[in-house]
């Protein structure tokens, strides 16, 4: 099982999208008409608990779905976002104790988030996390979502990371922090990001940084339904969808079966050669938006999927590893009904030959 911890405004919003998408994914696997087929099974067990709300007892899987509760902890020091979650259709997913909140906010100050609120809410946080963890029989990872620019997300988020490291050192901690864009509206965001990055290097097992700039690019290129807004606001909804999809797809192989399964712990195992070098670049092809005729991200053939995955256009971080850098290791997770092993083999060989420079001691660093 995995527990999702969403901190701060950015984290909460991405988290909401994530739960929405997760429910949709599982719903699409079940037939909507036949109620008997809606079963709470092993794959749902990864993120949800099934509770018989009349008796308030948890049901083990497989069992028919009664009330689903998410395995999550939602933390925010301002009321606004959490209140909107409670007003939204997702409110049934969460129990009251899973919300940890305060009123005044952290004022875009890492120190306030980390030291002040950390100290104040340390016990409450550790209690709630322990409660969630006890409801799992084999906890595999914590997934932390927060932003790096603000106060709560970066400060309190990294405090929680340290707490998780202390309480559960053997459980994998995967963090998807959102780095601020170049023209961010928070002035102290560089300070916050740097202080938070240090904490990430120390305590996280695996960090998949996400950049607002590249998300905007992907949305602009691929989502034809969101027209560029004249008032300069970012299409946050679509951007959050991308990140939520990322987290969902990472865990997809540990939830659903296939000919070659990839467990969540295999990702850090294979891609992190040294404990502190755990920053991964991720990209998704095709970009997860509703298909429309103008959606140019749908690849035209199988080989193109692989090429696109390595192109900087689909990355969630603005870097160019193919031209500027050297790869240490690379991993691919494929969800498809039609792509087979030989396609993968062929493309990996092609890509290695032409486009990618691997570090000399790990020429075959593929997963």
């Amino acid at each position, binding site marked *: 099982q995995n527990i999702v911890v969403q901190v701060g405004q950015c984290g909460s919003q991405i988290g909401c999208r994530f739960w929405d998408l997760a429910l949709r994914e599982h719903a699409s696997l079940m037939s909507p008409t036949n109620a008997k087929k809606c079963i709470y099974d092993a794959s749902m067990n990864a993120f949800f608990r099934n509770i018989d709300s009349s008796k308030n007892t948890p049901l083990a899987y497989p069992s028919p779905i009664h009330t689903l509760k998410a395995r999550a902890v939602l933390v925010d020091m301002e009321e606004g976002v959490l209140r909107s979650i409670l007003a939204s259709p997702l409110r049934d997913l969460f129990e009251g104790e899973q919300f940890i909140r305060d009123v005044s906010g952290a004022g875009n100050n890492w120190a306030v988030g980390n030291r002040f609120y950390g100290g104040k809410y340390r016990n409450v946080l550790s209690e709630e996390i322990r409660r969630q963890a006890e409801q799992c029989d084999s906890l*595999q990872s914590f997934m932390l979502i927060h932003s790096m620019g603000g106060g709560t997300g970066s400060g309190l988020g990294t405090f929680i990371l340290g707490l998780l490291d202390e309480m559960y050192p053997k459980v994998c901690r995967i963090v998807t922090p959102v780095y601020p864009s170049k023209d961010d509206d928070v002035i102290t965001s560089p300070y916050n990001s740097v202080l938070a990055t240090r904490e990430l290097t120390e305590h996280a097992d695996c960090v998949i940084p996400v950049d607002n700039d590249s998300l905007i690019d992907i949305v602009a290129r691929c989502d034809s339904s969101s027209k560029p807004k004249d008032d300069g606001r970012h299409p946050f909804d679509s951007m959050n969808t991308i990140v939520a999809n990322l987290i969902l797809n990472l865990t997809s192989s540990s939830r659903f079966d296939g000919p070659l399964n990839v*467990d969540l712990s295999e990702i850090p195992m294979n891609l992190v050669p040294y404990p502190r070098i755990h920053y991964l670049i991720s990209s998704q092809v095709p970009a997860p938006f509703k298909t429309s005729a103008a959606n140019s991200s749908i690849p035209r053939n199988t080989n193109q999927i692989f090429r696109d995955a390595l192109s900087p256009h689909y990355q969630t971080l603005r870097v160019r590893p193919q031209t500027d850098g050297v790869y240490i290791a690379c991993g691919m997770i494929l969800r498809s009904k039609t792509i*087979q092993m030989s396609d993968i083999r062929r493309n990996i060989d092609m890509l290695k030959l032409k486009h990618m420079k691997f570090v000399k001691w*790990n020429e075959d660093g593929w997963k």
Partner: protein
Amino acid sequence: MSCIVLQLGQCGNQVGQHVFDTLVEDNQTHVNAAKSTITNRSSVDEYVRNSLDRFFIQYDNKLIARALAIDTELKVIEQLTNEKAQAKRHWHYEKKCVFEGRLGSGNNWACGYRNGSLAEEHILEKLRWQLEHADRVDTILPILSLAGGTGSGLGAYAVECVRDELPRSFLLTTIVVPYTSGEVVVQNYNSLLTLSHLYHSTDALLVFENDILQQYAKKLVSCSGVDRPTNIHDMNNILTRHLCSFLQPIAKKDHSFCDLNYLLEQLLPHTFYKLLTLRCVPQLSDQALDFSTYKWSSLIKTLSQMYINNSYLDEGLNWSLKPFQTRTKSLANVFLSRSYDKEDLDNELKQYFNQSDFYSSFLSPSNYYSAFQYRDKSYLNYEKYLSFVSNCQTPVASLDRIVNKSWQLFGQKAYLHHYMKYDIDEQVFLNGFVQIEQVIKSYNQL
């Protein structure tokens, strides 16, 4: 005399399931039923009885596989024991012999090894259940892959436990060597550690390589006329077909059935040389079978050329190579031929395989090879099938590759912290290097 199969990890479980399917399928095919005379029938019945007794527990009308299915993730085991899937087959797994963990081993050999030590009691308990339901167990057949975490790590631990528990049984481990170009980044570490631990617990290692299986599968699929990419299912198919041709009952010259142990004894003259390879002819896709007939002499000639070329496939062979240019030397060979006709292969075998160049210098000609045959029933749908098991230098190339790549990574101390988390430190790695290098050297000296 029965054999127990240990399916370890995802690869082991998928292959193991297929093995049992293929065994049952073979027992039910009777090509050219018109040819079966009365004597034939009883002999075939004895064959089927022998095979079923070896691999299945039979009672009432049900067949229970003599197997342990062990994995640390739920998904593959769930597929195996799925109600719907079981109903389609004639046999099933005993629930008591299935062990599944929850967390997986994360491609980490050290994690798998530790999972093994935690699961030791359970595994031994299930093994004992199987032992109680068999009259006499001669061979244990673990099946595992070298790249992952469970098959390699837990598998190595399990094989060591089984060796401690049953010191006098034969352990024939089937291993699958991963793709050269990498399917898991730390596969070389995992393979190295597994091989070094397995080498002194097991009696023989039957080596299959994913690269070769992929090529083979591609050839078969392209020949079959259907244009589709090859998948893991195809590769598993080939592996099990080869493996079952070795596992099914076979008879000596005097028509008495012999045990698997007898075959293995012929193949392992020295305790230090344990690597076996399996080459089979003919290599056809299912569709082509109905249209092809072969003569034994052509099959044997192809086989000898494959051997000289150090290859597993009968394509792309350099036919101009003569026996003294052979690229591999062997310590012992065994031929298993299965068909309907009554031909004797001795002359042809002598012509092609009695070359002293093929064998290492300290062997005497009478020990070069042994031939076994079963003449009353064909194998699956093949009219003639010849399997060639040999204890030769062929797998050493892949071992060499594994060692070199691991040494590169080890020199940079990359990925070691994952193993150190479970108390596997540099000394274990170094021991592994030393052992495998010794194996490579002794094979190269043949």
